[in-house]
């Protein structure tokens, strides 16, 4: 069965979705990603969906779910490179994904992720 590769870059995980998502693939991505976050002790997840051209409400909700799951596991999620058509579809479906952070491209997403983890590192140090 095909799987979406999850790459480790330092303390971050990089997921690039290059194929059309179907429901089973989305479920296996959730499984793989959560276990990878734990095993790699990742601080952040970057999901690149610039090649994704079609979404339905299930896939849309999956992004929200992944972000929520990562947060529980102490990792920030940034979704990058969403196509205009995908953004319009998600909004029309009523899924504006309030809990998901977004960026235009990988570079900006990485900056955002670094900023977020740095800020959290400071908070943790402050409270300790």
């Amino acid at each position: 069965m095909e799987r979406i590769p999850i790459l480790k870059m330092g303390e971050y995980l990089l997921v690039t979705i290059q194929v059309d998502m179907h429901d089973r693939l989305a479920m296996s991505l959730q499984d793989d990603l959560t276990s990878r976050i734990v095993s790699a002790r990742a601080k952040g997840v970057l999901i690149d969906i610039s090649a994704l051209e079609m979404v339905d409400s299930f896939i849309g909700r999956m992004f929200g779910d992944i972000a929520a799951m990562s947060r529980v596991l102490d990792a920030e999620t940034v979704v990058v490179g969403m196509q205009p058509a995908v953004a319009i579809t998600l909004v029309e479906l009523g899924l504006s994904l309030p809990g998901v952070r977004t960026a235009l491209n990988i570079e900006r997403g990485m900056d955002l992720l670094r900023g977020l983890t740095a800020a959290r590192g400071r908070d943790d140090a402050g409270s300790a």
Partner: protein
Amino acid sequence: MATDASVPLHELLQKDDGTLVQNWVDAQINAPSFRSDRISRQEVMDQSRRFVTLLREAVRSGESDIMGPAWIGVRQMLDDLSVGRAQQGFSPSETAAFIFSLKQPVFDRLQAGGTSSEVLSRVGSTNTLLDRLGLYTTEVFQRGREQVIIRQQQELMELSTPVVTLWEGVLALPLIGTLDSARTQVVMENLLQRIVDSGAAIAIIDITGVPTVDTVTAQHLLKTVAAARLMGADCIISGIRPQIAQTIVHLGVELGSVVTKATLADAFGIALKRLGLAVQKPSNAARRREEEGTDGRAAADRGEG
């Protein structure tokens, strides 16, 4: 019936050539509705002669349905003529008068010879045929006008939603006119595509030119903002007039976390600040240096000249 209708007309067109066209052209030019400012006598002459030639061929086929394959030449000619006249600014009745003015010269000829009942049936069937052709010109004319209207609507839609770059990474979308669903779609697509193309991090939607904001318009604006956020760009809504601010509150529209500013300048200021940029006056020394620099260049230009 088809043959009964077309045979006398066919014979007539076959026998008579020059004078029928001549009489018809005279009838057209002498009619009170003739637009000598829009079309020349020569043009009318050419069109009439071509039409009679095509009509003769079509009638000879014996087919009575003007939408049939034998009439394709006549139809094409009328298509061109109607569309051309629609663009020249003729009215529909002036365009249809081209066909209807042919009735009188044809009927004059059909009346010669035969019993009165024969004449009546000949005239009647020819009348029906010419009526149908006349209505066909009106239909085509109308279609031509509709195409013009549709094209203008599309142009208006595209013209009225420009996306401008204010600074590297800052886009502005000045909206003018009422926002309905169709326009919002165009606005949204334009803006999102430009965000992708330019990689802008901040988009300012200026609604100074939007006359009224109701719940539907607000909903559309919020959708655009949400879609831009999903792509990773922040949106600022600016140009909110006092009355519109009141309306938004009275309607109970929840703008949520969307940043709103009264003027485009304020929104631009915020955008620059977020990008870590600032606008400032140059110091005296810097200004002097710059002036000297331009003077020096000007002197050099003069020297070369």
